[in-house]
């Protein structure tokens, strides 16, 4: 099971330039909205044609602009689940699922249908129409319909984003269980970093139509590499930097030198620090600097401080630092206070553009 994608498409004001290889079971496509994730999926499915490039699934060429191969979507054996599930509203649950069985012999359909309905806990809903189902049931029908078509690749486009948070967790658990049983590759598209972190082992970050190399999810969160990946992985603080030596940078927005645990690459243009990794300290020390507290906001389980280094570049809004700490760690701090803030060298992430 493997998927190779290397495609380019020019849409005038938007350039899609995506290349990645998915060999693991569940590979995430993480990107902000408008980064070209859905367009990529449409190209892989064959409902949109790239200008040039190659798409190969399990050794079968689906698209190759040089060899002039472009299989129609009907022949690609790809299960594509849309954000809205796209159940046919004029058909019952049973008819919807039977629509997925075009490649199955007529005689085998009833047995397969029964098995899928049981597996997906849909028994009893055969004659229901999509609008009579709950969000969770609709998702199960959409998945059942896809599984009935025996795809070599399943693509899920933001499958959980249309749901409220309680239902979302239940469905995520269900989805993970189902995907584990599926033998082929799954592409999981999302803009939600936590979801991708929990569901996928490998991830490909997309930013303004460009893809970054596939990496391990854990590595993405520890060493995002680029500013776009860092922001997508939830990093809330960054500063433009100048490299001083292999382990030291000058954070220009903040006006302070910082020591970096990892070697700083020559082409690093930014450093990023997660909101949880700043802490308050008593006075000067390694990577410590003095800040003015701009805002203290009580969140549900923690307190969010917005501070500004005394040495910050005037007028620069990105120079504000967001710190998230447990409530008791920052009790008594008020707006206008002066505090010492520090970050451990290993939590300073050098980032390329």
């Amino acid at each position: 099971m493997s998927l190779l994608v290397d495609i380019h498409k020019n849409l005038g004001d938007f350039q899609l330039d995506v290349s990645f290889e998915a060999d693991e079971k569940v590979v995430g496509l993480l990107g902000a909205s408008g980064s070209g994730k859905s367009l990529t999926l449409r190209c892989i499915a064959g409902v949109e044609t790239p200008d040039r490039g190659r798409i190969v699934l399990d050794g079968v060429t689906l698209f190759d602009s040089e060899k002039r191969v472009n299989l129609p979507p009907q022949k690609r054996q790809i299960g594509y689940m849309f954000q809205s599930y796209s159940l046919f509203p004029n058909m019952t649950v049973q008819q919807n699922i039977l629509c997925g069985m075009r490649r199955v012999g007529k005689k085998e359909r009833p047995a397969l249908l029964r098995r899928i309905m049981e597996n997906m806990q849909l028994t009893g809903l055969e004659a229901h129409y999509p609008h009579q189902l709950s969000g969770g049931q609709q998702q199960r029908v959409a998945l059942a319909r896809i599984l009935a078509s025996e795809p070599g690749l399943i693509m899920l486009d933001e499958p959980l984003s249309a749901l409220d948070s309680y239902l979302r967790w239940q469905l995520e658990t269900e989805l993970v269980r189902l995907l584990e049983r599926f033998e082929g590759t799954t592409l999981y598209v999302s803009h939600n970093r936590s979801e991708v972190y929990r569901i996928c082992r490998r991830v490909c970050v997309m930013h303004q139509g460009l893809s970054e190399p596939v990496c391990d999810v854990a590595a993405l969160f520890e060493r995002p590499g680029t500013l776009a990946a860092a922001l997508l992985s939830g990093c809330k603080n960054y500063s433009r930097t100048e490299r001083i030596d292999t382990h030291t940078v000058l954070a220009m927005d903040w006006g302070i030198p910082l020591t970096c645990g990892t070697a700083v690459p020559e082409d690093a243009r930014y450093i990023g620090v997660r909101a949880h990794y700043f802490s308050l300290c008593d006075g000067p020390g390694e990577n410590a600097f003095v800040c003015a507290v701009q805002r203290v906001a009580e969140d549900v389980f923690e307190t969010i401080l917005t501070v500004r280094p005394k040495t910050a570049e005037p007028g620069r809004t990105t120079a504000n630092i967001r710190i998230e700490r447990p409530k008791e760690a920052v009790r008594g701090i008020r707006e206008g206070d002066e505090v010492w803030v520090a970050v451990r060298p290993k939590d300073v992430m050098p980032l390329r553009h």
Partner: protein
Amino acid sequence: MDWYPLYNSLRIAALSSILVFFAGIFAAYYSARLPRGVKGLLDVVLTLSLVLPPTVCGYFLLLLFGNRRPLGMLLAGLGLPMVMDWRGGIAAAAVVAFPLMYRTARGAFESFDQTLAYAGQTLGLSNSYIFWRIRMPVCRQGILAGAVLSFARALGEYGATSMLIGYIPGKTATISTTVYQLWRTNDEAGAFRWVLVNILISAVILVLVNMLESHSKKAVAS
């Protein structure tokens, strides 16, 4: 009372509606896929007869189907004369009613969720299956409304019809042309009878349209 105008009007309206139904859907479906510039131009051409006076449409039809025009001579040779023959009424009604079907069908297709078609394609359904079994049923309300509207318009057609097929009692007379002829010849009572027939048919059509609309509202609400 001679019921020929009713019979003639109904058959002209029915046949032209069938023609317009398929032509309108075809045009609506394929024009949606054209590049923007071509689409805009085609849209103007296809909708023109909605805003032109029907007599102008009739004039153009005479240019096309006239007895000394190539197409007119060809059709007459095939036993399908269009001028001063009830069959010409089909062409007149169709030309005038076409934009109503085309416009409503296009509106319905444009609001169709394209991901349904994509989902069908990736599941292996053929494009014609997707069109007839998914796109058309999902757009049913809009398409039916367009069909009813164009039938009503075809039934009430006067301008282009009188230009092309005139008024020959028992041959080309329709309800609309009969009302005018009877009134013109001072048969007010006869004209009034046909006016009543006309109002009755229109009322039935309006009730039908309202039923369709309330049905579609219910479908949206559920």
